[in-house]
């Protein structure tokens, strides 16, 4: 290669983000960090930020609200009264001055609360729509909101806290579970790369061995191998992948093996035809004449001959595998516990990201896959030109 291509740089950056960057980020990417479908922070200025505060006895807690109504809210903790209250309520004063009762605590000396806006009972009690998550009915505009415990007996102790998970988050927002899409995106790099590269390596090893063996040894071995190639080429890929994924399970390594086993045929054919001419080369005939073992000839001289083209084949094979993985994931045939970009797209689609317009869930994995494929295509082309300088053309994209 004459110069270091942009695609090589991009691949390095992706490798760094996938394998090194997560080491510096605390926490598990699977844990929710904000409301489901929270927008990226840089576009969601009007969305509610994350907020948490405790409700002290007495005046309670007042806070200024200047955003759209949030989609999540929870109240939990314990309240201890000085005696058994005849009437005790947790109240919520809206900016408009209207007072709502979040919970009735009467009749208990110690009350434990665990309210969540997602509970149907909570929504029904406050007259909120059971279908719409927005808590418009609790916020209703901008201004000061006050939460306090209103009782006829003094409050001894309160560990009540109110939490608003927030509707905006980070670089890429959150997914349907409230997980950080950026973290998932980083985790996905690793899986997509691993699956792509490993499966292609598997297929290359098989294809290389079959091609060298068939081309060099010839005869029955060659005929059998080429029949196997014909059989495999006659089977439509996606359907057989679906069957095998159901048969062998959907783990990552099974997927790598399945994809590898069904994509070595092209390599085998290419290697075989190169080996056929290599076999007839004078120096190889000379080697044979002096009694060099077949394995030695193939390993020492055969492999280097086909190597340049093989490398190009590897690079050009990765996009196919990555796209196959994504297609399998889209059809729901991948391991749900492994975060890959294909899986992210599948989940986004099956939880309604397209109709919600949650582009921040779709574009990162979708463009990520495209970028990764594009990078490998470009590398493959560069390698191909290196192997066969005639192809050198208008340069990279």
């Amino acid at each position, binding site marked *: 290669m004459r110069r270091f291509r942009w695609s090589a740089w991009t691949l390095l950056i992706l490798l760094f983000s996938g394998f090194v960057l997560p080491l510096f980020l605390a926490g598990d990417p699977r844990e929710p960090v904000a409301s489901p479908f929270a927008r990226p922070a840089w576009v969601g200025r009007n969305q509610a930020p994350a907020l948490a505060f405790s409700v002290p006895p007495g005046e309670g807690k007042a806070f200024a609200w200047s955003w759209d109504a949030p989609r999540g809210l929870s109240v939990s903790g314990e309240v201890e009264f000085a005696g058994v209250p005849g009437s005790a309520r947790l109240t919520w004063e809206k900016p408009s001055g209207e007072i709502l009762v979040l919970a009735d605590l009467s009749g208990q000396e110690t009350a434990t609360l665990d309210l969540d806006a997602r509970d149907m009972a909570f929504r029904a009690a406050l007259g909120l729509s059971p279908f719409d998550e927005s808590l418009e009915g609790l916020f209703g505009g901008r201004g000061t909101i006050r939460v306090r415990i209103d009782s006829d007996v003094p409050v001894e102790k309160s560990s009540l806290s109110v939490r608003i998970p927030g509707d905006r988050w980070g670089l890429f927002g959150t997914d349907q579970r409230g997980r950080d899409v950026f973290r998932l995106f980083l985790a996905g790099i690793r899986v997509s790369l691993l699956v792509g590269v490993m499966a292609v390596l598997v297929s290359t090893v098989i294809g290389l061995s079959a091609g060298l063996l068939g081309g060099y040894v010839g005869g029955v071995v*060659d005929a059998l191998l*080429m*029949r196997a*190639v*014909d*059989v495999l*080429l*006659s*089977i*439509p*890929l*996606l*359907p057989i992948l*679906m*069957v095998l994924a*159901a*048969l062998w399970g959907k783990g990552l390594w099974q997927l790598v093996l399945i994809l590898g086993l069904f994509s070595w045929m092209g390599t085998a*054919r290419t290697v*075989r*035809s190169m080996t*056929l001419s290599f076999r007839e080369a004078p120096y190889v005939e000379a080697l044979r004449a002096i009694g060099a073992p077949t394995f030695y000839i193939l390993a020492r001289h055969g492999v280097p001959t086909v190597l340049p083209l093989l490398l190009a084949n590897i690079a050009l094979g990765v*996009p196919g595998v990555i*796209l196959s993985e*994504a*297609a399998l994931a*889209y*059809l729901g045939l991948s391991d749900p516990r492994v975060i890959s970009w*294909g899986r992210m*797209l599948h989940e986004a*689609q099956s939880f309604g990201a*397209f109709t919600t317009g949650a582009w921040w869930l*779709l574009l990162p994995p*979708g463009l990520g*896959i*495209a*970028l990764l*494929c*594009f990078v490998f*295509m*470009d590398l493959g*082309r560069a390698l*191909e030109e290196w192997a*066969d300088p*005639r*192809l050198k*053309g*208008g*340069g990279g*994209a």
Partner: protein
Amino acid sequence: MISMRGYWARRLGGAVCVVAIVLVANFFLFRLMPGDPVSTVLDPRFSPQAKAELEVLYGLDRPLAVQFLIYLERTATFDFGLSFATQRPVLDEILSRLPNTLALLVPAYLLSVLLGTVLGVLAARRRGRAAEKAVLSAGAISFSFPSFFVQMVLLLLFAYVYPVFPLRGSLSIPPPQGTWPLLVDRVWHLALPVGSLVLLGFGGWALTVRNLVVKVMGEDFMVLARAKGIGERRLFWGHAFRAVLPPLVTLFLLSLPGVVSGAVLTETVFSLHGVGRFLLDSVLGQDYPAAGGAFYLLTLITVASNLVADFLVQFTDPRIRTGERSSS
């Protein structure tokens, strides 16, 4: 030097071999899959005895060897048995869906090959210019996107946000009256699925064609022809293009089975009633006769197109007269 007859006999023998292997593999592959269509009937109102009746209905009560023989006998005559899911002959099911799938795939495939070839040739003839660069980039980009992603985005954009095309299916409801309006309606419904397949498919072709042409242009016989002073135009169409035609035809026919994968996803996204979706449903629903039948037909088509490819190559390329081509 092998005689032509011997060569064709060997080719045909090989094809039969492939079909036989696929036939056997088909049978056992589906039976190896965990579970069976009876065990996945989950309804507490179905007693074990009722389930036994269901096994009789599906022919699953007989020994595997007997099932296999029945399968072989039937498949030879294109009788794939009754689909478990619909209790209708599998061949009927497939044939009734085939027109829809063909209406999707044939125009999509032809258009993407046409567009790909034109752009590939263009790129090859404009070596080193912006046009080549543009075609190469467009090709790589179109090849790099996951198909369902592009299709979902297109559907959202052109059927919902800008409702130019319909959201689903292959027919307006109620369907328009008269042949012409009906035809227009069909085309309108297929525009988006076909368009998206072309968008996704032309890139790979353009890249392949460009590479082939570039390679051929550098061959010795081309250099010789150029040295003889043959004009660029004649050089290209008379020599180069004729030389790339055989491998193109081969590629065209060999990539047919791959197109089926496209049908599975496209028919899923655009709610089309086709063979691809049928295959997916049968595989997921453990409908052995249906999945096996569809698989077998696809294999036959592939093997046949392989043979046709060989034949055409022999026909168009007088240089090749021996068996070497068959397996390279």
